[in-house]
C-alpha cells in the first residue's frame, strides 16, 4: 500500500485562550494539503480558529504494554494530590 497517503493527526483550537485539542486524523500527501483537508473535514461547523497538523509518524506514544510501569506507581502516592490543606473560603477556582 505504498500509494496510500500518509496519516496526519489534527489538533484544533476552538477559541482564543484555549489550547489545541486532538480531534482526529486524516490522510494527505503533504502538510499543506493536510491543512486544507483538516479545514474541510473538521471545521465545517465553526469548530475552530486555528489548526495544527502533525505527521502521525512523528508522534512517539507510550506503549499499552508499559501501562503499569508508567502509570500505576502514581496511584498510591496520595501526598502528590493537593488534599492536605484547607481551601480558603471564597476561592472558587483552585
Amino acid at each position, binding site marked *: 500500500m505504498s500509494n496510500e*497517503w500518509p496519516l496526519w493527526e489534527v489538533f484544533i483550537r476552538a477559541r482564543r485562550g484555549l489550547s489545541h485539542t486532538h480531534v482526529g486524523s*486524516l*490522510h494527505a500527501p503533504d502538510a*499543506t*494539503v493536510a491543512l*486544507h*483537508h483538516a479545514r*474541510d*473535514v473538521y471545521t*465545517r461547523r465553526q469548530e475552530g480558529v486555528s489548526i495544527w497538523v502533525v505527521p502521525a509518524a512523528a508522534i512517539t506514544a507510550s506503549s499499552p504494554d508499559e501501562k503499569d510501569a508508567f502509570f500505576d506507581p502514581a496511584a498510591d502516592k496520595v501526598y502528590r494530590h493537593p488534599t492536605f490543606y484547607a481551601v480558603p473560603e471564597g476561592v472558587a477556582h483552585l
Partner: protein
Amino acid sequence: MTAVDELLAIGDDALVAAQRLGEWCSRGPEMEEDVALANVALDQLGVARLVLSYAGEADGRTEDDLAYLREDFEFRNCLLVELPNGDFATTIGKLLLLSGYQKPLYESLVDGPDERLGAIADKARKESAYHLEHSALWTVRLGDGTDESHRRMQAAVDELWPYTHELYAGNGAWLSTVESVLAEATLERPDGGWQPGGGRRGVHTEHLGYLLAEMQVLHRAHPGARW
C-alpha cells in the same frame, strides 16, 4: 444584458458548478478530497440560492422556479461550468479557471451600486478565495508532479482553455492569476485557438440539457416536493 440577466449569469454559474461538483460526491479520489469538493459545491449552491432568489423577485419567481422550471436556453451560465467533470485534473482545472474569475468578480461587486448583491458578494468572496487556493494547490501538485499527472493536468488545461474566452474577455486580473498558477505548475498556457461562447445568451453545449434533466427531474415529477 439586463440587470436580471446579470444576476442570472452569476447565479447560474454557481448553480451549475454546484450540480457538477456534486457529481463527485462519494466518487472522490480520497475521502478527504471528496469532502472538500462537496464543500465547494455547497458554497456554490449557497451563492446560487441567494442570487437566484434576488433575480426572481423582479417578476415574482422563486429560487426553485428559476432552478427547476427553466429550459436550458433560459440559463445564462458560462459554458465552462456545464462541461463534464472529466478526470480529477479536469475538475480541478475547471475550478481554478472558475474561481479565478469569480473571486475578482465578487470583490468588485462588494462596493458596487447594488447593496444587496454587494452583501452576497462579501460572503461569497471569502469562499471563492478558498476555492482558488485549493484548486491552485492541486493544479501545482498535479502539474509539477509525476509524468502522468503532468500530462493529465496539461491536457485538462488545453481542453478547457477555449471556454475561458467567454469568462475573462480581456480581464487582466483573471489572466495574471491563472498564468502565475500555471507557471508554478510547470504547465503551458494554451495560445489562441477557437473561442466558443454563447452561454450568457442561452446558447449552450449539449451537456447542459443532460445536467438539467438530472437536476430538475424530481421537482418536475413531484412539484413542490420537500425533504
